[in-house]
């Protein structure tokens, strides 16, 4: 099959693995953070770590849109969905995100709220056209990749005079999250998270280009290699990162040249800039409140803003006390380190957000890799970890 199997070729993977092992040597250790959940998923699903030498460690970053969605925002989405006459349109991943009071959108749906799963904002727009007497609210989440389609839908709704189409905007920004991690005490001072470089986002970078990462490479002296979401992309990026570290270089390199340019998708950027503006601050699950890290609708498009129409108030809700999602999202801990992992917290009953989406570090480890934890713990006799 064209363009799928080519990027999953086992023989090429073996030779890349051998090259990484050869060039990494055994004298030093390398820790790279893959920012995106898409990379986390690919690494777990294809067993990429089996092909890496023990000296190269991958740290899962916070780039999973569902994982960083704080409980308070999901509560607000449920509140919207329960309003009479409202249809809440949402991407499938957010349906099971745990909210306050043991609720989730899926459970709210079972209790009578009208929640519809959509594949794109265009589906939500269609719902609004087909249900003129209802208000259709798109639960818009995600990084720079999903933001332009939301902006487009708002502009289309305006052009078509669809006053019943609204957006509950939760779009967040990748560069702010990366700076936040690099500024965190664990990385900066204590050194508990030794990050030697980043595997940079694939789809996000198609929109924002490779330029925004130049600041991190320069200011924080961390190499960045932008990589596609296929497993061979990830392996190639790791090899490029090892080479940068060995050469003492801190550059932005682009492995994903088939889709990413330095400038990115200028049209999409313009569209986003036209409809959205920066929020002063936004709560991220795991990272806390991050300044200028998210978007909201500009005044010009206030009529389409669900937060304003329903006068919703942002509220912060604490995560489960024992949940390590925060530390896992910052790379401080690994999924199997969490006390709840595999006991109280499973994909069927996720307590923390990292267990919800297949891109979450905990779900990926649970679904694809938990037999490794058992091997490590052999003899300890614990349950599934």
């Amino acid at each position, binding site marked *: *099959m064209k363009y*799928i199997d080519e990027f*999953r*070729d*086992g023989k090429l*993977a*073996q030779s890349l*693995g051998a090259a990484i092992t050869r060039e990494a040597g055994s004298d030093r250790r390398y820790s790279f953070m893959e920012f995106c959940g898409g990379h986390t998923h690919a690494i*777990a*699903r*294809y*067993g*990429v*770590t*089996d*092909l890496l030498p023990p000296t190269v460690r991958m740290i899962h970053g916070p780039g999973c849109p569902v994982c960083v969605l704080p409980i308070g925002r999901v509560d607000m989405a449920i509140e919207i969905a329960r309003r009479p006459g409202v249809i809440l349109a949402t991407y499938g991943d957010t349906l*099971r995100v745990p909210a306050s009071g043991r609720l989730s959108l899926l459970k709210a749906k079972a209790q009578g709220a009208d929640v519809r*799963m*959509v*594949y794109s904002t265009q*589906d939500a727009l269609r719902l609004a056209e087909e249900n003129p007497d209802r208000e259709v609210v798109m639960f818009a989440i995600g990084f720079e990749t999903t933001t332009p389609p939301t902006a487009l839908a708002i502009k289309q709704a305006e052009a078509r005079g669809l006053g019943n189409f609204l957006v509950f905007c939760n779009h967040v920004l990748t560069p702010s999250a990366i700076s936040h991690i690099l500024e965190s005490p664990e990385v900066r001072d204590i050194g508990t998270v030794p990050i030697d470089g980043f595997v940079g986002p694939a789809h996000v970078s198609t929109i924002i280009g490779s330029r925004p990462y130049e600041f991190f490479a320069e200011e924080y002296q961390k190499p960045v290699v932008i990589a596609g979401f296929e*497993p061979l992309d990830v392996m190639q990026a790791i090899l490029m990162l090892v080479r940068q570290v060995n050469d003492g270089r801190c550059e932005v390199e682009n492995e994903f040249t088939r889709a990413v340019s330095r400038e990115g998708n200028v049209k999409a950027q313009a569209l986003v800039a036209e409809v959205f503006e920066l929020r002063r601050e936004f709560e991220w699950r795991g990272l806390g409140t991050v300044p200028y890290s998210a978007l909201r609708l500009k005044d010009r498009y206030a009529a389409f803003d669900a937060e304003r129409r329903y006068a919703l108030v942002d509220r912060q809700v604490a995560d489960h006390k024992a949940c390590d999602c925060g530390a896992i999202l910052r790379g401080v801990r690994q999924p199997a380190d969490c006390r709840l992992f595999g006991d109280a917290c499973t*994909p*069927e009953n996720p307590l923390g957000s990292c267990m919800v989406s297949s891109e979450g570090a905990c*779900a990926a480890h*649970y*679904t*694809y*890799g*938990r*037999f490794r934890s*058992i091997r490590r713990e052999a003899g300890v006799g614990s349950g*599934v970890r």
Partner: protein
Amino acid sequence: MKRGFTRALDFRHGHVEMTHGSGGRAMAQLVEELFVACFDNEALRRLDDQAQVDVPPGRLVIATDSHVVSPLFFPGGDIGCLSVHGTINDVAMAGAQPLYLAASFILEEGLPLAELRRIVESMAQAARAAGVPVVTGDTKVVERGNGDGVFITTTGVGVVPQGVNVSGSRACPGDAVLVSGTMGDHGVAIMSLRENLSFGTTIESDTAALHGLVAAMLAAVPSVHCLRDPTRGGLATTLNELARQSGVGIVIGESRIPVRGEVNSACEFLGLDPLYVANEGKLVAICAAGEADALLAAMRDHPLGRDAAIIGEVIEDEHAFVQMDTAFGGRRVVDWLTGDQLPRIC
């Protein structure tokens, strides 16, 4: 023809009405003119409330299955033939020869009689082709809005021949794991029609009755340990069920699992894994390693097993993990399905 002095059912323009389930003349007419006429067999013609049939000696197998698939008609089949195949396969997976079916219909007021007839005719044809008659049934009608056209529950009985002992709990370390053909066809065919993700595809549902294939397999290798049809939840779910029931682990090789290119592509852009997509005409078999080649040859000789393959082996594992060597060169867990990948697939 003035038979009973009633006007014949209008299969061109008529719709299901509440009276078709109320036990009166309208219901009797529907039963006679549609169900008895289509399923036509001696037991049904007696019009008793139950069927009386002869059963050969042996262990009796009973299986029941409800069908709520949406849409009712899909590439390669419809809810009618699916409801026959699904239950026949459940009986056959015990190694049994399926003998009779019972069918229960929940109809929604307003369903066009033309659609109902198409469905019943498809059921009748599937039952005839399989040699397993529908010998008794029931009809209920619910108000418009309380159903989705038609739901069909079928129950099947069959008899296990002497010397056959097939169960999901019989997999042993060292055994070979086989599948009878390509994975994921049914699920992708259904998905291609769903309202909010319609896409063009040439993939047809694989819906089929597998008892003929099972008989051929048991004739070649009577000691087959496990048989199961990987329907909802796909191959991954079935392997996990078998591993847990038998208290063993299973290791499969990704590159050994047959999957159509079109199915792979569709799954790729829908974000699905073909291992979790439903099948309706495929089975998983586990047998002693020494007999795997003979079993594979018997499967490939049968039209429904032409693409059969040995995909892995059973290992000792107290955690009952299903693992897979990826084509990429790594190894990962193939876990239970989480959540609902696609509702109302069968």
